[in-house]
């Protein structure tokens, strides 16, 4: 089966649903997620623990654990239709059409193989280069991700590297076959702040130079503002607001996105008291009816308890709220 694919399209997710369990134990973890990205573009998917942001990436990469059921109208990643692909086809897609960078490089790298061997694996699988050509490509990749003296480092084992270097090695592995799309799930959360700044800068320039699209999953609004072109905010398995990152972070329209921003302490200025959001995110086993944010929302009305607000376009944004913070008169930049 062939489907029409836009050459500039890096990722299309339409109406993605993930559920586990049967009958009365059925839990819907993702409820109708739609996202799209073009090549060279960075979209940040931001939310708190359990909001479904990692699940979205795992589902799109077809890396869901057994027992999780996936449904989607369309799932095209890096030009490849992954929704209907089976095991062998997925092996040909993963690493070639998209790469995946995980949070914790120490547990995602194989401690028994050198980083050179690990970066070479996707090259061997997909590009069928000979030994010498593979080795020289690995050295180029290590250079591209900022390893000084790359030719002396590819025989190092993960434990011989610092946290930042391990994450650079994992990025080299993810981009080894020059994929048009990259998933990065909390890629800097385990790193110190100075190393984080370096790795974020690296990811941003790799996307720009290679025309690679990136879905960056993070809980940190600062990381969003540092690298993302657009942002999608998730709450309890649904997207509640999308739009240009700078505009959404400066003045969110969804009350949850606004509350997240206000709860954040700042390094640039001290406030007397943080505006904490009361309560806690709901468990998937007890998602509220209607808008899932309504029990914690100061703007909630009767309608919010019974009806689910759809993501409605509003200027350059989409917002899923019956009582959004601002009716917008946004113009394109």
């Amino acid at each position: 089966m062939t489907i029409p694919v836009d050459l500039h399209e890096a990722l299309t997710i339409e109406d993605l649903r993930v559920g586990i369990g049967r009958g009365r134990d059925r839990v819907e973890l993702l409820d109708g997620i739609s996202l799209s990205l073009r090549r060279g573009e960075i979209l940040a998917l931001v939310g708190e623990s359990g909001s479904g942001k990692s699940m979205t990436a795992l589902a799109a990469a077809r890396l869901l654990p057994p027992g999780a059921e996936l449904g989607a109208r369309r799932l095209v990643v890096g030009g490849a239709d992954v929704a209907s692909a089976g095991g062998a086809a997925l092996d040909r897609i993963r690493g070639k059409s998209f790469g995946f960078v995980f949070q914790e490089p120490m547990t995602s790298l194989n401690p028994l193989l050198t980083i050179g061997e690990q970066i070479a694996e996707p090259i061997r699988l997909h590009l069928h280069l000979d030994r010498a050509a593979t080795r020289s490509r690995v050295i180029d990749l290590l250079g591209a991700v900022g390893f000084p003296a790359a030719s002396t480092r590819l025989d190092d084992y993960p434990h011989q590297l610092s946290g930042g270097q391990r994450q650079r090695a994992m990025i080299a592995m993810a981009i080894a076959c020059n994929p048009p799309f990259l998933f990065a799930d909390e890629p800097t959360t385990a790193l110190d702040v100075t190393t984080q700044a370096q790795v974020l800068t690296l990811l941003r320039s790799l996307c720009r130079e290679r025309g690679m699209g990136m879905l960056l999953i993070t809980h940190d609004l600062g990381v969003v503002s540092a690298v993302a072109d657009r942002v999608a905010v998730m709450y309890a398995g649904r997207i509640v607001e999308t739009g240009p990152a700078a505009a959404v972070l400066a003045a969110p329209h969804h009350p949850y996105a606004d509350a997240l921003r206000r709860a954040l302490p700042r390094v640039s200025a001290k406030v007397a008291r943080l505006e904490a959001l009361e309560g806690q995110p709901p468990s998937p086993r007890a998602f509220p009816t209607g808008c899932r944010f309504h029990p914690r929302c100061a703007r909630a009305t009767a309608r919010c308890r019974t009806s689910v607000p759809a993501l409605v376009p509003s200027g350059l944004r989409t917002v899923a709220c019956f009582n959004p913070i601002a009716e917008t008169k946004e113009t394109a930049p």
Partner: protein
Amino acid sequence: MSDPVLTLDRVSRDYVRAGRRLAAVDEVDLVVHRGKTLGIVGESGCGKSTLARLALHLVPPSSGRVLREGQDIARLDAGALRRLRARMQIVFQDPNASLNPRWRVGAIIAEPLRAQGWSRQKRLDRVSEVLDLVGLPQDAVDRLPSAFSGGQKQRIGIARALAPEPDLLICDEAVSALDASIQAQILNLLTDLQARLGLTMVFISHNLAVVRHVSQRVAVMYLGRIVELASEADLFDRPQHPYTRTLIAAVPEPGRPLQAGSVRGEPPDALAPPSGCHFHPRCPLAQNICRRISPPLIEAASGHLASCHFPGASAS
């Protein structure tokens, strides 16, 4: 300012790793004043958690003295030390790892009181009091930690720390495992409790924004040494040490461009720290003197200490 609750006097703590000496904390001088919060920031391996353990006398210093209200903790007899322990408590990072999953919340909170020999009735009364203080329902006593969310578990950890009526509370990455909306709740709780109970706090974190929010004074650590110490406003608005400027610039924050170019490399191996100023290999200002001589922590501006040969200078 003349009421020091905790004083570290030239305190060092060494460990031996692979036959080599590692100075986790290297000749640190610090004073924490009553009712105030001292923030300690630094990256992994800078020695900030070892400093917490030294302050609580969980590890003895290799050299130097830890003083509580002017008294050297190491010279207290067993009884005096036990009484002192009640008055200094710690809140840990991960409530899942620091609460016994098989104990009911009431027993967890009462444990430090039992260790101090409180009667059963006094323990029950105090547990009820501290549950109120941290905003947990009274029926929490009969439940297990697993019945609570991450933010509530951290409230249990705070209740346990407050139970024996400490005057010194050490928070070691106490909000780092929490989501943003919950983190704000716990930070507000800690600042409210401090105002209400007159607590003295040492707040240790890698998160500069969180440290700025809760602290009146802030120390920056790098490879076991304090490199800058000043009031919160002076340190964040007028940083004197190039490492502090680097750290602040690297924090991503909405509305601020990310400045990654200002620092090179990663923190060096603590087993083989650079000569002279530990920061010199990464410093944009480094000169020959920085490679040879470790700069003392001295006043670079009024009430503002920095250990740098060129404090306040900017890279040209």
